[in-house]
């Protein structure tokens, strides 16, 4: 008897429908084969299914079973084919009709219960887009899948529960979204540092506010212990929350990796990724045997914080150039090519020299000049060109620390309010365009939205002469000035905005 059950396969972030064809034949020697380009993890299904049947007091048919995963030319991997195959066998040997227009998805445990599996969110999203009415999946994945409306979700605990559901003995009710638990998730997330807990550093804080507003990339440079990492961490506290669309994009990525398993809900906070500087090429960009997303994709719509920027492998850093420009990464490997989104905000921190104290007056730098030069040269011009703001972070003097013990620093909410209102201005401005923030403006957009008055142009001309700004540098300053004007709630870019923006231009040490 032939039974066809529908399931899916993941190709990058795309989902493809897969027909799981189960044929139970009375002819031939008893056997159990899975065909259709299965991965090792799919091949192991056989053993899990057999044991699960036995432990659930179900008869595993002693017949010739052939399972085909069609289309047979797509590589299938993952443990979630256990459930559709088991369902197919169940239907075939009990003569049951599998439910129409439904997807099956889940991993079996040897005792017959279902384990949670990665990718449930992608599955329900796919079901919605393709008008599939029901999803059968492990009850542990229900929360994650139910973030998408209009799809009936059946949470199944065990293979026995499915049998009784299909036989009509005990009907499983569709899962209903639990509103309360969604709110819990936000508070459970680890809290970023609040700006009021950072003493001084007004300049750096202001720069971070500009970044959060316009989505600009920033480089923090300073001696060890100045507070660069702390500042970067605090940036999260003033980032605007994800919009509904962005939230879906981010949840898709994390669902694919199974990282939503713990929270099980739609992700609403912007991701903050802080990969260590030993991160490999594949780890940063994505790839590997299964072509999985890397750190830059995990930081999509969020922040990629590269601490100790100059300690990163040069190849890894240089590879960031294209994603920084295009907002996505196409991995071309022998297994195929996959495009992952990678639209992130780069926050980088570095020391000025190997010992860390070059230019610091209170501590002696023990590096030779060529060491300093070589160290700084690791940051290539093209990469530096993609960084909009540069801040020299100075350590707060100990005396000051004591002085400000009873501090009255502004807290993050003050900053965030301004950020949010300036973001709204930008959203309105770019409503007909594909992007949302000032940092993503291209040449013609700059010409349209950043008109400069004569006096401002005069100032820019002076700046070009005095600081030797490049063409790209020129546009960067204008874009940053646009963001500052937005924060100031002004339509026109004024002299003061440009003057402030010039403070954040790249100032590497002139070593000639």
């Amino acid at each position, binding site marked *: 008897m032939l039974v066809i059950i529908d399931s899916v396969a993941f190709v990058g972030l795309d989902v493809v429908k897969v027909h799981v064809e189960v044929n139970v034949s009375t002819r031939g020697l008893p056997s159990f084969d899975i065909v259709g380009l299965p991965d090792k993890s799919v091949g192991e299904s056989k053993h899990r299914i057999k044991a699960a049947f036995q432990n659930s007091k179900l008869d595993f048919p002693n017949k010739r079973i052939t399972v085909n995963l069609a289309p047979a030319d797509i590589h299938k991997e993952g443990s979630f084919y256990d459930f559709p195959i088991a369902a197919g066998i169940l239907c075939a040997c009990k003569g049951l009709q599998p439910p129409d227009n439904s997807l099956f998805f889940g991993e079996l445990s040897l005792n017959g219960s279902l384990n949670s599996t990665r990718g449930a969110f992608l599955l329900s999203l796919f079901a919605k887009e393709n008008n599939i009415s029901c999803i059968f999946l492990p009850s542990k994945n229900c929360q994650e899948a139910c973030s998408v409306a209009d799809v009936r979700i059946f949470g199944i605990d065990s293979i026995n529960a499915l049998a009784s559901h299909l036989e009509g003995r005990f009907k499983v009710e569709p899962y209903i979204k639990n509103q309360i638990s969604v709110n819990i998730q936000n508070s459970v997330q680890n809290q970023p540092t609040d700006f009021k807990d950072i003493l001084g550093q*007004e300049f750096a804080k202001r720069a971070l506010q500009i970044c959060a507003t316009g989505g600009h990339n920033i480089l923090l440079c300073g001696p060890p212990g100045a507070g660069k990492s702390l500042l970067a961490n605090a940036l999260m506290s003033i980032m605007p929350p994800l919009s509904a669309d962005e939230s879906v994009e981010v949840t898709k990525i994390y669902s694919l990796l199974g990282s939503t398993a713990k929270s099980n809900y739609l992700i609403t906070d912007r991701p903050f990724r802080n990969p260590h500087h030993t991160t490999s090429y594949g780890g940063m960009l994505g790839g590997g045997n299964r072509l999985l997303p890397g750190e830059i994709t995990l930081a999509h719509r969020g922040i990629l914080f590269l601490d100790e920027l100059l300690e990163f492998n040069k190849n890894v850093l240089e590879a960031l150039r294209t994603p920084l420009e295009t907002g996505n990464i196409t991995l071309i490997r022998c297994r195929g090519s996959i495009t992952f989104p990678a639209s992130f905000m780069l926050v980088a921190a570095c020391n000025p020299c190997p010992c860390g104290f070059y*230019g610091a007056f209170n501590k002696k*730098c023990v590096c030779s000049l060529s060491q300093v030069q070589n160290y700084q040269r690791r940051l290539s011009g093209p990469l530096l060109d993609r960084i909009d703001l540069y801040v020299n972070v100075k350590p707060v003097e100990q005396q000051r620390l004591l002085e400000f013990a009873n501090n009255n620093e502004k807290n993050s909410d003050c900053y965030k309010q301004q950020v949010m209102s300036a973001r709204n201005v930008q959203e309105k401005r770019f409503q007909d365009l594909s992007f949302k923030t000032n940092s993503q403006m291209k040449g013609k957009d700059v010409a349209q939205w950043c008109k400069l008055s004569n006096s401002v142009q005069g100032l820019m001309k002076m*700046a070009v002469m*005095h600081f030797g700004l490049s063409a790209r540098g020129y546009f960067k300053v204008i874009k940053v000035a646009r963001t500052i004007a937005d924060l100031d709630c002004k339509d026109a870019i004024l002299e003061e905005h440009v*003057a*402030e923006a*010039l*403070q954040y231009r790249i100032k590497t040490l002139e070593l000639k």
Partner: protein
Amino acid sequence: MPATNSIEDTFVAITDDTYPKLLKEIPNPPKLLYYKGNYNSMNFENCLGIVGSRKMTEYGREVIKYVLQTLTHRKITVVSGFTFGVDACVHRTCLELDIPTIGVFPGGLDICPHSSLCDVYEQLVYSGGLAVSEFACGFQPRIWSFPRRNRIVAGLCKALLVVEAAKDSGSLITSGFSRKFGRKVFAVPGNIFSDTSVGCNEILSTYAQAMYSNITINRFFEISGGLEKSKDTSKKVRDPIENKIVKLLRASRMPIDDISKILEYDIVTTSKLLTLLTLNGEITEEGGYYYASNH
């Protein structure tokens, strides 16, 4: 090390009339002085050596500009060691201000000692400057050739000015030679906590004369008074707030956060003011610190 002279080499021998007179006076003058560029024996009459640290700060840069501005249109040639840092800055500024300048190389004249100096090298050799060395073309600089080079810098000059020097700096070797040869040594006093001024302050306490104003050097070269400064900057009426910032920075260098804290302006205003002041050339910035420029 090629023992023979290549065709490219041009040199003056110690027996030539055009050989620098002051250099002849030192204990072991080079027998041959190789050169590239515009050789004019008149340029060796009044030489001032300016040397200093490789790791230079904005302070050094300001001092060099300040000193050299007063030397334009005098018959003074500025000699330096053609290394990066202070030396390169000296040559660059001289070429900008059209002051005759001589670079003394630690190796052959066909080798630019450092890739970052290529532009100065081109200018020095091909646009009016002069490069000299006691080593023939093809000789790679060695550790020991630097002090020998320093001996020639000291030997060529009537007076030597040490701009910035760390403890045990190579510049102190040069000033030591100058002293031995009986030449005048000036040093620029600096912050006692600054690494790059320790050497200067040290020789100031022993044999060097303090270079505390542009008059010091000019007087030595029998030039009365300093050069007239361009009037427009001093006459410009500054905003009272801007005045406060400049005054503050004259007292000591400061990062932006401190300026905003002390003057109690918010960071946005401070940023704006500092940019405008920088563009007007009233202050300069290096490594996160702001300095008042000298006017």
